[in-house]
C-alpha cells in the first residue's frame, strides 16, 4: 500500500468507527496501542519498496538461463524469443524469464497464504478469534515479520487476519502483473518477485504462529524432544496411518482421536513432508518417514494401511500407488480433491466400510475434526486383511526383471539426475545389487525412469528392493521443530554475529531434489557445526540432516545442541517455520541493534544485508514455494545458495566481484562512498558441487560491518575451507581484507604475500548502508 493508500485506509477505518463506535477499541489497539512509532512503509504496496529492490538488483543482476526458448502463455503464441526476438505481445526474453519467475513466486506465496487461511479459519473456529498469541516468557517479539512488513502487532489469532488479507490482496495484484500486456521490464518483474517473497514470509509467519499458539507446539524450546525418523522407524506390526502434506489439522485429528480413545501405541502415525514435522510438534509420539522423496518408496513398501493426504508436495499418483498396495486414501483438502467423491456428510462407518471393502479406493472428506475417527477406524479394520501388501518385486524377481533390460538408457535420459541406471540394472541381472544400493542413496524417488522404460521394468521399485538392506535399517533421531528463536538467544548471539565472532548463521531449507543425494548436505552442515557456526534447518532439509549416523550411531541432532548459538543445530520445523529464520535475522536488528522494527522494512533489510552474516542453503529446492521463500530472503538481504537443479528456476542473482563499482556503500557516519568488498557477493547462486558450496557459504557470511576480529575469524574459515576443498587460497582474498588486523594471525605471512601479489592496500571499514537517508551526518 502506498503512503496515500494507507492514509485512505485509516480514513476508511475512521469512518467505520463513526458508523460503528465499538470498532474504535479493536482498530485503535492495532494502530495505536503500541509504543513503537510507525515506520515509513506499513502494508507496503508493490511499488513502496521498489527503490530498495532496484538497489539490490543493480548490484545483483539476474543471469537468465531460459528453460525454454518459447513463450506459450497466450493464444498469440507460441512465440519464439531467441536471438533477441520479441513475442506477439512485444515481450522480450529477460522480461519473459522474470515473468515466469514471478509466476512461480506467486504460486508459492499463494500456496502459503491459502495454507495460512485454511489453518487460521480452522483454528479460529476451534479456539476463538481471541485466542492469545503468547509464545511464553522468552519471546516478546512474537511476530517480527508481521511487525516489520505490516506495522501491526498481533495479540490474538484474529489479528492475524488483517495481515493475511493484505497478503492475499497483494498477491492478486502481483499475479495480475504476469498477464499478457502487463509488466514488461525485467527489473520490475524482479522487484515484484521480491515483493511476492516478502508477502510469502508474512504468510509463513501467520500460519506457523497460529498453529504454535493454538496447538501447543514447542515455543522456541531448544530442548524440544527427539523423535524417530526413517522407514525402519515405523513399526510394521501395527496398523500404520501415513499422513502426507503440509496442513496439520487432519493429522492432529488422528492423534487426538488416538489419545482420546487411549489407542496411541496401538496405531502408528507416520508422516512424510511437512505434515510429519508438524504432527511431531503436536505430539512427539508421531513418527517421521522422511522428506517428500520418500513417498514412492514408503507406499510401495506396503507399510501404510491408510494414506491421509492434505495439501502440497503430494505425489499426483498417490491414489494409484496406494491402490496398488490396497491402502485406501483419504483426501482432506479443497486444494487436492483428486476426483474423489465427497463423503464429508456420510456416516463414518459407512465410509469405513467402502474403503475397507475396496469398493472405493479413496474419498474426499472435508471435516478435519472427524478425519481422526475415519482414518483410525479404517486402519484398524483393514489391517488384518491387508497384511502389508507390497508393490515391490520380490528378491527372486529382481534378477529376472533386471535381465529384461536392453540397455537403451532411456531411463537415464529421463532421470532428473541422469543416474547410471542401466549399468546398475545390468549388475543386478547378474545378482550384484551394490550399484542399486548406491542409486537408492542418490535417487530422488521421482519414478520417471520407470515411466519411460520401454521394457516396462519397474526401475524405481527395482532400485528400492535392491537397496532393502539400507532402508531396513533406516532409523534415526530428529529433534522436533522448536519454532521461533527466543529473544534471549538473540540477545546472546546478536553481538557476536553482527561483529563477526560467530562466523555465520547457516540455514538449510527447502526440498529434497538433490543432485547427488542427501548425504552432501549432512556433510556441509557438519563442517559448519564443527566450526561453531549456527546451523538452522527446516522442511525436508531438516529431515535429511537427520538421516545419517556417525560411527557411534548418532545423528547430527543427537550430537549437537538445539540452541540458537555457536555450534547449535536448530530445527525450526516445517516449511512455514522458515519464518523464524527470517524472524531471527530481523530480531537481531531489532533486539540486539535496537533498530525500529515497525513498518521499517528498508532499514532492517539494509541492516541485515550489511551486518548479519546469514546464508540460506536450499540444496534440493524444487517447488514454487521454495522460490517464494528464497525471494523473501533476498529482499531481506540474505543470500541463498541452491544446488545444481536450482539453476532451473531460470536465473541467478549474481554480483560481480571483478566490478569494483558494485561494492561501494555509504559510511553512515560520514556519508562517504566507501568500497566494502563483494560482501555478500551473490544474492542467489547455484553451486556446482558440494565443495564449491562449502567455500561459498563461508564467503557469503562476510559482511561489510564485520569488525577486524570478526573478519579475521570468518577469513580463517574461508581460507581453511578453500584450502581443504578447493586446494588453494581463495583468489579473491584481497577483496575481503580491509586492514592488516583482518588477517587471521596464524595465516599472516601467507596472506600478506598473496595480498602483495595483488597490490593490496588498506581500506577503511565503514558503518555500512545502501540507504542515503541513513547517513547521520550530511
Amino acid at each position, binding site marked *: 500500500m502506498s503512503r496515500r493508500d494507507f492514509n485512505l485506509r485509516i480514513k476508511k477505518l475512521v469512518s467505520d468507527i463513526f458508523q460503528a463506535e465499538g470498532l474504535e477499541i479493536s482498530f485503535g489497539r492495532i494502530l495505536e496501542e503500541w509504543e513503537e512509532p510507525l515506520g515509513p512503509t506499513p502494508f507496503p504496496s508493490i511499488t513502496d519498496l521498489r527503490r530498495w529492490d532496484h538497489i539490490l538488483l543493480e548490484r545483483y543482476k539476474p543471469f*537468465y538461463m531460459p528453460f525454454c526458448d518459447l513463450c506459450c502463455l497466450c493464444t498469440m503464441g507460441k512465440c519464439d524469443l531467441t536471438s533477441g526476438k520479441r513475442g506477439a505481445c512485444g515481450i522480450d526474453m529477460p522480461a519473459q524469464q522474470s515473468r515466469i519467475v514471478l509466476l512461480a513466486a506467486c504460486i508459492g506465496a499463494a500456496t502459503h497464504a491459502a495454507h495460512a487461511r485454511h489453518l487460521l479459519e480452522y483454528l479460529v473456529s476451534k479456539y476463538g478469534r481471541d485466542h492469545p498469541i503468547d509464545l511464553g516468557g522468552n519471546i516478546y517479539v512474537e511476530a517480527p515479520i508481521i511487525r516489520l512488513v505490516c506495522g501491526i502487532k498481533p495479540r490474538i489469532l484474529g489479528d492475524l487476519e488483517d495481515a493475511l488479507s493484505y497478503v492475499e490482496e497483494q498477491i492478486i495484484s502481483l499475479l495480475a502483473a504476469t498477464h499478457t500486456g502487463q509488466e514488461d521490464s525485467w527489473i520490475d518483474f524482479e522487484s515484484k518477485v521480491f515483493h511476492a517473497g516478502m508477502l510469502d514470509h508474512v504468510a509463513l509467519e501467520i500460519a506457523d504462529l497460529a498453529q504454535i499458539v493454538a496447538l501447543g507446539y514447542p515455543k522456541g524450546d531448544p530442548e524440544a524432544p527427539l523423535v524417530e525418523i526413517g522407514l525402519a522407524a515405523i513399526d510394521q506390526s501395527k496398523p500404520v496411518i501415513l499422513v502426507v502434506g503440509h496442513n496439520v489439522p487432519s493429522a492432529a485429528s488422528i492423534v487426538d482421536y488416538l489419545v482420546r480413545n487411549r489407542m496411541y501405541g496401538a496405531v502408528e502415525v507416520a508422516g512424510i513432508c511437512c505434515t510429519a514435522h508438524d504432527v511431531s510438534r503436536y505430539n512427539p509420539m508421531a513418527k517421521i518417514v522422511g522428506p517428500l522423496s520418500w513417498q514412492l518408496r514408503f507406499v510401495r513398501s506396503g507399510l501404510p494401511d491408510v494414506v491421509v493426504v492434505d495439501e502440497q508436495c503430494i505425489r499426483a499418483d498417490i491414489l494409484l500407488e496406494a491402490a496398488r498396495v490396497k491402502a485406501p486414501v483419504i483426501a482432506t483438502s479443497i486444494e487436492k480433491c483428486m476426483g474423489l467423491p465427497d463423503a464429508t456428510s456420510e456416516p463414518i462407518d459407512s465410509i469405513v466400510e467402502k474403503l475397507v471393502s475396496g469398493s472405493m479406493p479413496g474419498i474426499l472428506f472435508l471435516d478435519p475434526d472427524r478425519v481422526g475417527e475415519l482414518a483410525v477406524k479404517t486402519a484398524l479394520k483393514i489391517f488384518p486383511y491387508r497384511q502389508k501388501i507390497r508393490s515391490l518385486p520380490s528378491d527372486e524377481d529382481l534378477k529376472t526383471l533386471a535381465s529384461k533390460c536392453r540397455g537403451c538408457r532411456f531411463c537415464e535420459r*529421463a532421470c532428473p539426475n541422469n543416474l547410471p541406471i542401466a549399468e546398475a540394472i545390468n549388475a543386478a541381472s547378474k545378482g550384484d545389487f551394490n550399484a542399486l544400493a548406491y542409486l537408492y542413496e542418490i535417487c530422488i524417488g521421482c519414478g520417471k525412469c520407470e515411466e519411460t522404460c520401454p521394457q516396462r521394468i519397474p526401475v524405481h521399485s527395482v532400485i528400492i528392493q535392491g537397496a532393502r538392506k539400507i532402508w531396513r535399517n533406516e532409523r534415526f533421531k530428529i529433534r522436533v521443530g522448536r519454532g521461533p528463536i527466543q529473544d534471549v538467544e538473540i540477545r546472546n548471539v546478536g553481538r557476536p554475529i553482527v561483529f563477526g565472532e560467530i562466523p555465520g548463521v547457516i540455514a538449510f531449507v527447502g526440498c529434497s531434489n538433490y543432485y547427488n543425494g542427501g548425504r552432501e548436505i549432512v556433510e556441509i552442515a557438519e563442517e559448519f557445526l564443527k566450526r561453531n557456526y549456527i546451523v538452522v534447518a527446516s522442511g525436508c532439509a531438516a529431515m535429511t540432516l537427520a538421516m545419517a549416523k556417525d560411527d557411534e550411531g548418532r545423528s547430527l541432532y543427537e550430537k549437537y545442541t538445539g540452541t540458537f548459538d555457536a555450534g547449535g543445530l536448530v530445527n525450526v520445523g516445517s516449511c512455514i517455520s522458515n519464518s523464524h529464520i527470517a524472524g531471527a535475522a530481523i530480531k537481531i536488528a531489532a533486539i540486539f541493534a535496537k533498530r525500529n522494527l515497525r513498518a521499517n522494512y528498508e532499514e532492517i533489510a539494509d541492516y541485515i544485508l550489511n551486518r548479519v552474516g546469514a546464508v540460506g542453503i536450499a540444496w534440493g529446492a524444487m517447488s514454487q514455494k521454495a522460490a517464494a521463500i528464497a525471494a523473501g530472503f533476498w529482499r531481506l538481504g540474505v543470500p541463498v545458495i541452491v544446488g545444481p537443479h536450482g539453476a532451473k528456476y531460470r536465473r541467478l542473482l549474481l554480483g560481480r566481484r571483478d566490478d569494483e563499482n558494485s561494492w561501494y556503500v555509504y559510511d553512515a557516519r560520514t556519508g562517504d562512498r566507501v568500497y566494502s568488498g563483494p560482501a555478500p557477493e551473490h544474492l542467489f547462486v547455484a553451486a556446482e558441487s558440494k565443495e564449491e558450496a562449502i567455500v561459498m557459504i563461508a564467503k557469503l557470511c562476510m559482511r561489510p560491518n564485520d569488525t577486524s576480529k570478526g573478519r579475521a575469524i570468518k577469513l580463517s574459515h574461508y581460507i581453511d575451507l578453500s584450502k581443504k576443498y578447493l586446494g588453494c587460497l581463495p583468489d579473491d582474498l584481497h577483496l575481503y581484507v580491509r586492514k592488516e588486523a583482518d588477517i587471521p594471525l596464524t595465516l599472516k605471512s601467507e596472506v600478506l604475500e598473496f595480498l602483495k601479489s595483488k597490490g593490496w592496500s588498506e581500506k577503511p571499514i565503514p558503518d555500512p548502508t545502501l540507504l542515503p537517508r541513513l547517513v547521520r551526518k550530511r
Partner: protein
Amino acid sequence: MSTYRFPEPWATAEIPGPRKAAIIPRPESLVAILRRANRRLLVAGSKALDRIEGVDTVELIRLLHSTKLFTIVASRNTAYRLEEVGIPTVASISVYELGDRLRDSSWTGFDGVGGYDLVGFIGFPYITLWLVLSGLKHFAPKISTISLDPYYHPHAYWSLPNVKGSEWYSFIKKVADSFGVM
C-alpha cells in the same frame, strides 16, 4: 558416429526451442572451427575429474590443452586437481559466474585483453551445461559455444552429437592430432 542422425538432447525432455546447436559431424569440422577462432576458452566442469561414459575426462582435457589453442578455466572443485596433473588453469570459477561474465560484452577476459569468441565446455553434468549454454545462447550472441561432452547440447552453437565413450575419445584425439600433438 552411430548416433549422428539423432540430434535429440541427451536428457530427452530438455527440448529447447527453435534454435538448436549444429552438430559437429567430424573431427575435421571441429578443427576448422577452432582454427577460425581468435580467442578460445576451454571450460572444464564440475564432473571433469570423473570418468564420463567410461572415459577419463582429464585425459581429454590434457589432449585439448596440448593443442595450445586454449585458455583453460575450471569449475571450483576441478581446477586444482587439473593443476596437480599438470594442466594449468588461469582461473577456478563457478560456471554460472563465468556465464555471467561472458554475456557481458564489455568484459575483458581473464587476461584483461578482451573477450572470447569461442568457448568450449567439457566435463559437466548435463543439466548444468544445458542451462549455462541457454544463458549464453540468448545473452552472449557473439560467442560460439561448443559442447565437447559426449552429449548433444541443443543450446550450444556447435555440439557433438550423443556418442559412445570410445567414439568421443577418438574424436577428441583426432582433433588434437590435427594440431600436431603427441
